[in-house]
């Protein structure tokens, strides 16, 4: 099940661990361009992480160990998921049959402890944030799953390296519409899961309107760094899912594949930036509707696959 | 001689009870008579004489079962009598004791008689001897109950007489000698006149069914059971209804020999389901514990009729159910009697927390409730389950499902009454009487519920063999 320690594995681990913060920079840069600003350096997230790791922290009196465990788990699960999904090559260091489910559930575990950490502070706002996060996750998760069902149906497997492997590229010719629908719905999931506009505004300054950001208000220093890093990993994971889903990174040439993959993730980040710049944040009650809409889109894709084959 | 003794011993003791002047010692005659009776019954059944008076009295496989059943059930009630009557020392128990003792004599006579006329006379006498017992409390409600019991019972039994006459006439019609002797009827009934047999059977089932308490002739039951002392309720529900059932079985037997099974079975199933349904309706939201038990008795009489109507293994179930229902009803009625004494009420409005106020009676009530509703591990389950299985075995799953449905509805109704009064807070101080769970009034309950449990896990010999015999006796092919 585990691929041997090949060059691809080494590249995979390196990319998974080092590349993600760059995407945050890309998004910021795109938004800056749209706003007519120069914006932060592309590598700003790396600087932030470095700085946070060296800062001291203040911890709320009401908290317990859960408060600190939240960032740790969210980072750990992020890393594991990044090692499960295929990146530039149809393999992954930790791939096994059924890892699709593990990946989704690992993200769930991360979310669980992030919400726990938020509730541990006893702040009304952080509670509010975690309630919203919980609600939207309930709606986003099935969308992801229906998409996976489509892929599993098309590729005849439910291991990440097959589902998002080379089979997808072949499937595009047969089930273009279905895959497009999945792509769209997953992009919505990406926006929700990573707390992006139009579902959440990471840069807002009013706690009442936040979702994800408000949950981590009390974290500081290395813990906050872990959260930031974990968030970038999550963004990277979803971007990678989208890129693998397009099936473009399956040319057969390893170098080209990795190149296409990395470019692809940056393109996804740019897209996120564009959406963030072009759209306003949804009203809170609209969000479930939008998510259910994404679910319906994915379900339609599933129906297409069922009927076509 | 033994057969005569079975009838005479209680009758003589009844006469004795009427002359014994001591209110305190008189009740002891009841358990004495019951013990002697059981002894005599056992001696007789284990190989004594089988017939007397030209087969006017006889023991056959059918009434053997019933004789044993009524003797056992009566003994359980009898053991309770002294304790209960001592608790009611302010009231003369002369008439009650006399009647209760005579009751044993005449029910034995009903059991043993092989002559339809004699059976009828004895049956009518049971109505007369139980009426004063129901009136024991001497209040307006008891009076009303007695009046209704007496009149409905008499009318019913009068119809049974007409039915008996019809039956005898049916024999004349068939060209054979007119007779009311059971053995002769059975012997010749294959050539009986069918229209008259039909009419006779209907009247007989309605008539003796009135004594059994099948719906819609059951209307006296809630009143009589509700107002009579618990012990009398137990006797009526355990003994009287059983012998009435025996009478119905006698005629079913004749109908069977006359190849009228389908007709007879249809009627019995009809009455069975109607009784169970009626009981279910009236048990819902029933506030009166004793009336609730009375409807339960209606339900179980329905079960008996239903089981016979189904044929096959259900017949055995029905016969066994006579024991199980009777013993369990004794436990329930005696417990209800204790509760009535202790609370001065039998309404669920006042009766709550019985398991605290009367720990033993309360537990027996609860256990008896589960037993009578057919919970496994209790006797009634064994028989009810056989009746149910009989329905499916006979290829009538719809009837079986109806049976289950009624069991469920009855459970709901009865449980809502009994479970709710078993649990709950203790009533306020001063609202209840001084009565408490003394040994003399609880050991018969414990005995009865213990027997119920015992019968639920083990059917002692020779009961299974006797039941099988009785079943074969009932179902033996008319050609033989």
């Amino acid at each position, binding site marked *: 099940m585990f691929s041997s320690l090949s060059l691809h594995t080494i590249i995979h681990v390196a990319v998974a661990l080092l590349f993600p913060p760059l995407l945050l920079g890309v998004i910021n840069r795109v938004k800056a361009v749209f706003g007519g600003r120069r914006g932060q350096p592309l590598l700003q997230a790396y600087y932030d992480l470095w700085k946070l790791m060296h800062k001291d922290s203040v911890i709320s009196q009401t908290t317990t160990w859960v408060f600190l465990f939240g960032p740790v788990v969210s980072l750990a699960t992020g890393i594991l998921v990044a090692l499960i999904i295929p990146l530039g090559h149809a393999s992954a260091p930790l791939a096994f049959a059924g890892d699709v489910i593990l990946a989704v559930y690992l993200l769930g575990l991360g979310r669980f402890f992030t919400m726990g950490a938020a509730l541990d502070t006893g702040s009304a706002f952080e509670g509010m944030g975690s309630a919203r996060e919980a609600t939207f*996750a309930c709606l986003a*998760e099935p969308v992801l799953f229906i998409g996976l*069902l489509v892929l599993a149906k098309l590729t005849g497997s439910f291991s990440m390296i097959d589902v998002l492997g080379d089979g997808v590229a072949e499937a595009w010719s047969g089930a273009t519409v279905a895959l497009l629908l999945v792509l769209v719905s997953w992009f919505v999931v990406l926006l929700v899961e990573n707390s992006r506009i139009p579902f959440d505004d990471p840069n807002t300054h009013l706690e009442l309107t936040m979702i994800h950001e408000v949950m981590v208000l009390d974290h500081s220093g290395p813990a906050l760094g872990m959260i930031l890093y974990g968030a970038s990993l999550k963004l990277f994971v979803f971007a990678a899912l989208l890129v693998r889903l397009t099936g473009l990174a399956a040319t057969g040439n390893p170098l080209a594949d990795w190149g296409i993959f990395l470019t692809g993730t940056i393109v996804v980040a740019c897209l996120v930036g564009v959406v963030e710049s072009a759209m306003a944040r949804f009203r809170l009650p609209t969000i479930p509707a939008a998510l259910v809409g994404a679910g319906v889109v994915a379900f339609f894709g599933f129906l297409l696959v069922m009927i076509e084959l | 001689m033994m057969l005569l003794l079975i009838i005479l011993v209680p009758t003589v003791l009844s006469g004795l009870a009427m002359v014994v002047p001591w209110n305190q010692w008189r009740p002891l005659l009841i358990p004495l008579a019951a013990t002697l009776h059981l002894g005599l019954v056992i001696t007789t059944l284990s190989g004594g004489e089988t017939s007397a008076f030209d087969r006017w009295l006889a023991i056959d496989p059918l009434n053997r079962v019933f004789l044993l059943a009524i003797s056992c059930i009566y003994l359980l009630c009898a053991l309770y009598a002294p304790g209960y009557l001592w608790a009611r020392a302010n009231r003369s128990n002369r008439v009650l004791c006399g009647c209760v003792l005579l009751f044993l004599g005449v029910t034995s006579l009903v059991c043993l008689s092989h002559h339809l006329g004699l059976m009828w006379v004895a049956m009518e006498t049971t109505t007369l001897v139980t009426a004063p017992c129901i009136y024991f409390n001497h209040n307006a409600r008891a009076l009303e109950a007695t009046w209704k019991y007496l009149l409905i019972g008499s009318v019913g039994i009068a119809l049974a007489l007409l039915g008996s006459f019809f039956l005898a006439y049916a024999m004349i019609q068939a060209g054979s000698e007119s007779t009311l002797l059971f053995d002769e009827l059975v012997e010749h009934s294959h050539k009986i006149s069918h229209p008259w047999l039909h009419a006779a059977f209907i009247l007989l089932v309605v008539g003796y069914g009135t004594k059994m308490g099948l719906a819609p002739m059951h209307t006296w039951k809630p009143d009589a059971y509700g107002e009579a002392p618990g012990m009398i309720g137990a006797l009526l529900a355990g003994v009287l209804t059983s012998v009435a059932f025996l009478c119905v079985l006698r005629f079913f037997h004749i109908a069977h020999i006359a190849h009228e099974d389908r007709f007879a079975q249809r009627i019995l199933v009809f009455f069975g389901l109607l009784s169970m349904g009626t009981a279910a309706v009236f048990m819902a939201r029933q506030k009166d514990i004793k009336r609730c038990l009375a409807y339960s008795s209606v339900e179980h009489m329905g079960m008996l009729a239903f089981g016979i109507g189904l044929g096959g293994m259900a017949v055995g179930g029905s016969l066994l159910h006579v024991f199980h229902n009777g013993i369990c009803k004794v436990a329930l009625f005696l417990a209800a009697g204790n509760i009535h004494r202790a609370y001065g009420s039998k309404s669920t409005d006042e009766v709550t927390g019985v398991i605290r106020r009367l720990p033993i009676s309360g537990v027996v009530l609860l256990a008896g409730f589960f037993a009578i509703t057919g919970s496994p591990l209790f006797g009634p389950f064994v028989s009810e389950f056989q009746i149910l299985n009989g329905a499916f075995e006979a290829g009538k799953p719809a009837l079986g499902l109806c049976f*289950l449905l009624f069991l469920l509805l009855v459970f709901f109704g009865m449980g809502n009454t009994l479970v709710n009064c078993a649990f709950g807070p203790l009533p306020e101080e001063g609202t209840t009487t001084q009565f408490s769970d003394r040994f003399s009034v609880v050991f018969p309950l414990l005995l009865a519920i213990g027997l119920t449990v015992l019968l639920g896990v083990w059917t002692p010999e020779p009961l299974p063999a006797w039941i099988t015999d009785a079943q074969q006796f009932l179902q033996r092919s008319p050609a033989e």
Partner: protein
Amino acid sequence: MTNELILVSGIGAILSGIPAAVLPARFRIGQALSALVLVFANAVGGYAVFQRLIQGPQAAVTFPSPIAGARLIVDMDGLSAFFLVPVLLVTAAASVFGLEYWKSSEHPQSFRRVPLFFGIMSGAMTLLVVAQDGLLFLAAWETMAVSALILVAAEDHIAETRRAAWLYIAASHFATLCAFGVFTILRSMTGSWEFGVIENAHGPLAAIMAALAFFGFGTKAGIMPMHVWLPSAHSQAPSHVSAIMSGVMIKMGIYGIVRVSTFFPDIPLAWGGIVLGLGTVSAILGVAFAIGQHDIKRLLAYHSVENIGIIVMGLGLALIGRATHQPAWIVLGIGGGMLHVWNHALFKSLLFLGAGSVIHTMGTRNMEVMGGLAKRMPWTANCFLIGAVAICGLPPLNGFVSEILIYTGLFRVLQDTPQGPVQAAALAAPGLAVVGALAAACFIKVVGVVFLGAPRSDRAATAHEAGRAMVGPMLVLVLCCVAIGLLPAACVPLLDTMVTSWTVGADGIPSVGTEFYLTPITIMAGLLIALCLAGCLALRWRGIADAPRGLTWDCGYAAPSPRMQYTSSSFAEMLVKLFRWALQPVVHAPSIRELFPQRARFESHVNDTVLEKAVMPAVRGGLWLVRWGRYFQNGSLQAYLLYILAIIVFLFLWQ
């Protein structure tokens, strides 16, 4: 020998309550002795299960039955052995918990009858799963059901408890009577009540039997529309009783369904579909109802509905597999579902025990007045948290293992069938995903509101940790949860025995371990734990232990109070609204009309929709009909005599 041993174990358990019931209350020696006997009896049972695993099938033990010609059979087959594990483990743990939770000094009314019937119920469940004939099964079944009634009604002076007890026994008796029907039909088809494959199981009778089994046993199990009794009974019973009711007793309903499904040689596809469908509905709506609850035990009870739903989904998948002859689906479905039986037994009883120790110190089940208990009762809090993670099906704990098996099976449906309506079964997978997410939302709510944050009441501020007898059993259960989560492969032998016994005589049934390779789960769990440890060490290395403590960031408010924390209802509000169509929440909101409004109160609660909107109206309608019927007994003697006349006339006309 194993069958005799398990019989001894069951009977020992049944008798175990006697010391507590008869010995003097003062030194609690009776209770301790009872718990000891029960633990010992269950240990004997455990040894028997182990022996069965090693030695294979043994000769059955038979007894004469009260019904002539039938016999009672005790034989531990694979299915029995599998279900015995949670029965033995959880009842033993809960009985030790009860030592301290249900002290004679605190419960003078019921301290005798609770251990007595606790033992009876435990033993009855042991005997239930080893019974191989309808009569013994029914006897054990009813003993269990009635003992549970006594246990639920332990605090019968409370009116609500009595109502719950009554609702419970009414539903339970419905289940019992359905079981009557099932075994009766079994006998009418095979000629005896003994369990075994019915050769000619076709026609309407077989369908009736299957329906009775599913809806009857499903009522006991608490599958969605039949779950009405479950929330109130679980919340009103003493917590250690809730633990065995939810952890084990409702599994007996599942056992019933599973056992009866072995009687049928062929399963129609529709049965599997219905089972899977109702399982999914049960799982989703169960957790949705759970989210709306403020009563911690009611909430846990609804999670039982959810988890039963998951188990039933697995079963449904396996039935579909049997209908379409797909061994992989069978193995994954039944394997996952039954492993979830174990898992749910472990973590749900753990959670109920945890809730019990919270209730013991708080004196209430209302979560809205709790908060911050993790500081005051860390052992309970941590155990509860682990249970919460496990019940959400999150890695690296046991809930995940069973769910991934079911997921895999559902995915296999897509993979193994090229087309056809069977594929729709795969849609249960996203359903399961919704369930997982909702469960996570619900449990983070419970953990957050009860254990995290600041105390919302004085009682919560002065709460104390539970004693050793209460924490110990919880730790045992935690250990089991973790063990299955980390080493699921260890369960494979028993799972395989169970699957073999379920698929009587079928060829080509692979091992669970080959259908789903479990070792990666162990590795991934190890990696996850290692990474988390590393993260924690990193934080410690960065000096987090000495970090200064400050106030929570209060967003600029001057006087924050613990009452301002997000409560359980506020946390759930959005989700409750999403499921408004099913939950029908009742909201008592103040209407503000003046400029300076008076003190106002906002309250919302979620009642059981099925009970309030379907069952109660039906009961009321029935009673309305009955009232009409009662006019017949109107006290008039003339009327009564008229009935007699009428029935004679009717019969003469009819015949």
